[in-house]
């Protein structure tokens, strides 16, 4: 009598891969490379006036451009009406950094000093009547697909080497 075994190949592979990923942690250097890319992608998005947050789209133009940014151009000659890129001196976005945790294999991206955190909050809430221009996802918000896709591909490439 023939013995038949029916196996769901996809389930087998899925369970095996899931176990291997949870058992094999990414190294410090790999996490650092991913963190660095994440920060660069955030900045590349913001510098052309796009929020890095899913669904937030393009940063809205200045409400009263003859006031801001036109009036501060004496002090900051490169600050113009477009693109709306959250750059004045550049100090704020320079403080956008990543931190890694080897113990739980995670990366945190954000502003870690109080001054920049206040500025980020101001952009999110719309300081002095400006439109909201959020940078760091909050609550149910997510990083946008284009950035996640790049990071996922990098992760797949790294896990292919170790599992």
């Amino acid at each position, binding site marked *: 009598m023939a013995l038949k075994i029916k196996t769901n190949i996809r389930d087998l592979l899925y369970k095996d891969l899931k176990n291997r990923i949870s058992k094999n942690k990414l190294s410090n250097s790999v996490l650092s490379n991913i963190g660095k890319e994440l920060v660069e992608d955030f900045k*590349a*998005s913001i*510098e*052309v*006036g*796009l929020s890095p947050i*899913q*669904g937030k*789209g*393009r940063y809205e*133009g200045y409400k009263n451009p003859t006031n801001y940014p036109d009036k501060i151009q004496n002090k900051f000659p*490169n*600050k*113009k*009406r*477009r*693109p*709306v*890129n959250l*750059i004045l001196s550049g100090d704020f976005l320079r403080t956008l950094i990543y931190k890694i945790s080897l113990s739980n294999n995670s990366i945190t991206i954000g502003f870690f000093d109080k001054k920049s955190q206040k500025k980020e909050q101001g952009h999110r809430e719309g300081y002095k009547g400006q439109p909201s221009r959020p940078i760091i996802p909050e609550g149910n918000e997510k990083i*946008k*697909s*284009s950035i996640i*896709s790049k990071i*996922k*591909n990098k992760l797949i490439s790294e896990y292919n080497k170790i599992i």
Partner: protein
Amino acid sequence: MNKISYKFDPFEISNRDAPKKNINKIKKEIAEFVLDQVLNNVGHGKSPVKGEAWKKSLSPNYKKVKSKLSSSSIANMELTGSMLDRLEVKQIKDGDLELRIVGREADKADGHCQLSGRKSRLPKRRFIPSQNQTFKNEIISGIKDIIDGFED
């Protein structure tokens, strides 16, 4: 002209079967992704259309004009921002998605994209594909990733 547009079926252009579940959710995410990618490419002076490219540099005269309003000195389709503010990707009646500019900015966009066949003084800088074209490979890959990332 009232509208300049590119209509596409995201499953057809990415060679993926349309899923049985979550189809509207997937299309919404793809619409946001495509809009973001078009704006991101254009913002960096690149065409999002496969096979298209344009010179990033500006004429000296226009560079001078642009420098009064913009901190960018490359061909990024943004002087006042009014045209790119009108760029959108929407789901239309037959279920396809449409990358488009509707309203008075459509003429300006056509001056750059040159899809209507009308003469334009401007160099061709196509950021909306013609119906015979498609998006560049990295955008198609991103659409595939979104579709593949949803459970069946």
